[in-house]
């Protein structure tokens, strides 16, 4: 009896440690995105390159967490909620790693854009989009930490705002390109950065879907918002 308790406590600690390392990775990724956007907005090529250079830290963390997941599956054969937690973690870190890749891209673009002429609005739209997307990552990770499905649904809703903002930036960029074709190269880079941020928003949204899956056991990918909200509400109010 005592031995069984001991084993299950160790197991709980393992899972808790795993969750924490996912969130630590999330923190790093969020910081990477913020730094990359910052570098682009203030035109600091060194900082941009630094972000791109630091992407390997994110990758290393993904590999380490992945290994830990396999180890837990092999040794403890988790079931039900524990299994869902591990599946959700494996998916979450993939998305986090992709966010890291987008940050790397933005970092590169930032270092390239720093050498070019700056527009009169000082990349205000990118800063705005970046802040929005950063908030989304933060809220998605908060929902993950608190197992809060209601907050997860909020993040999914916020993604449409990001999509709209991206749409606006691309329209604006087309106008700028038509006004002065000499700027096409620079504006294309800005558009790539905006596109990367929009992708980051999508990844944050995915993470929230895994949160709902983890807590409620319902797969809400590729469904509409009302079904997702229903899934998030059913089966109790959040905490698992």
């Amino acid at each position, binding site marked *: 009896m005592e031995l069984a308790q001991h084993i299950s406590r160790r197991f709980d600690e393992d899972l*808790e440690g795993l*969750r*924490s390392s996912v*969130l*630590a990775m*999330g*923190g*790093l990724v*969020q*910081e990477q995105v*913020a730094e990359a956007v910052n570098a682009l907005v203030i035109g*600091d090529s*060194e*900082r941009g390159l*630094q972000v791109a250079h630091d992407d390997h830290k994110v990758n290393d963390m993904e590999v380490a967490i992945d290994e830990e997941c396999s180890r837990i599956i092999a040794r403890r054969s988790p079931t039900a909620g524990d299994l869902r937690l591990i599946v959700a973690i494996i998916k979450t870190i993939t998305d986090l790693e992709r966010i890291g890749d987008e940050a790397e891209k933005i970092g590169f673009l930032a270092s390239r854009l720093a050498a070019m002429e700056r527009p009169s609005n000082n990349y205000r739209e990118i800063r705005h989009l970046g*802040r929005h997307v*950063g908030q989304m990552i*933060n809220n998605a*990770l*908060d929902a993950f*930490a*608190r197992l809060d499905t209601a907050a997860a649904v909020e993040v999914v809703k916020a993604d449409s705002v990001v999509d709209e903002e991206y749409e606006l930036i691309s329209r604006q960029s087309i106008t700028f390109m038509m006004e002065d074709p000499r700027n096409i190269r620079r504006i294309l880079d800005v558009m790539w950065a905006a596109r990367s941020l929009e992708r980051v928003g999508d990844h944050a949204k995915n993470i929230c879907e895994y949160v709902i899956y983890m807590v409620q056991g319902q797969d809400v990918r590729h469904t509409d918002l009302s079904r997702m909200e229903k899934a998030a509400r059913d089966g109790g109010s959040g905490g698992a």
Partner: protein
Amino acid sequence: MLAAWSYAVLRVCGLVLLALAGGWVFGYPWLWLIVLALGFLAWQLANLHRLERWLAVRDPRGGIEAPGKWADVVAHVGRLRRRNRMRKRRLAELLREFRHSTDALPDGAILLNRRREILWCNEAAARLLGLRAHADRGLRIDNLIRHPDFVTHLERAGSAGGRSSVELASPLDEAVLLSMQTIPYGDRQNLVLVKDITYQAKLEQVRQDFVANASHELRSPLTVISGYLDDLVEDEKMPAVWGGPIREMQRQSQRMQAIIGDLLELSRLEAPGGETEHNEIDVAALLAQIHRETLALERRPRDVVLTIDTEARLLGRESEIYSAFSNLVANAVKFTPEAGRIEMRWRADSLGAQMSVIDTGVGIPPESIPRVTERFYRLDGGRARRSSGTGLGLAIVKHALQKHQGMLEIESEPGRGSTFTCRFPPERIVVPVENQIPHDQVPGT
């Protein structure tokens, strides 16, 4: 004990006497005894049951009616319960007051247990960090505040056991700058204090901007003034009486230009430029240049010695390192008599690399050592008059080193001389492959 037994014996005797009396009057004394004893037992059991029911109610109003000894029991229990209720109410009030007062604090406070789980946080902490005061209890703080700087800060606070603080943007609003300090207490528990330092940071920024702008604006008029003064010094038609004052004016305007130059340099070093670039600096060549410049000075100590013990190169910005080193040497020259000696030494070991400037000058009194890197700090009136420095040299050295994660160490003995050592961490040092160049001494003069 004895009283209890005598009480019981008395009661039982009374019961037996009553039964005997009944038996004597109506006959069947044994039946009387049994019936009376059973009746008494039933009566006690019934009372016990009522007492148990009464105690089972959580918050009874008033007592229950019970005869005999049971009334005393009920009274005692009732008194105990009332006293308990009052104590509880007092405690609850105290707790409420404590919570109100901590919620009124402008700074956030979070209590963490040894597993970094939130035990309690006040309202300010919840507001500044976006925590939920009740729902987040029991969650690990590094799961909610995920900034890498904060996580490493927590780890370090746990292992070193000392106080430390970290600055980061609030997770809710990146325009809000927070300073978090972790204070260990009890059994590996931690108190985290959160402070909104946006205003202070802004103030510091304004101060830096002001110094930079003011120095910049002062420079142009000063250039005009010193230009005319230069002309006047050479003007032969000038009455001889004015020669002295004009030369003094020229000296002072040169000094002012030097101060403004240093102020500008200092505000450039203070500007938050993040990491300095990673160019390899050939320290040996740099020091050789400073050595040549020092030898070329008119008034200098007799011996100026350069000792290069390592080929190690430093990663950083050459102009800043040059200004740090040359300021140190200039300082040593200023305070060392002409019969004295100055040595510059560049060494490397497992702890990094050090550049030392050792002089046999007047030295610094121990109480002044911590203050010499302050701006415009002067040791004493007499020395300040003699020296012509700007008062900013060591402040520049300190800031230039800080930008390279370096440290300035000062050892000094008044009358015997001082040693200024710049320490650089190993990550800033690159050692070339052909590493062995022992004791390459360049003698002075």
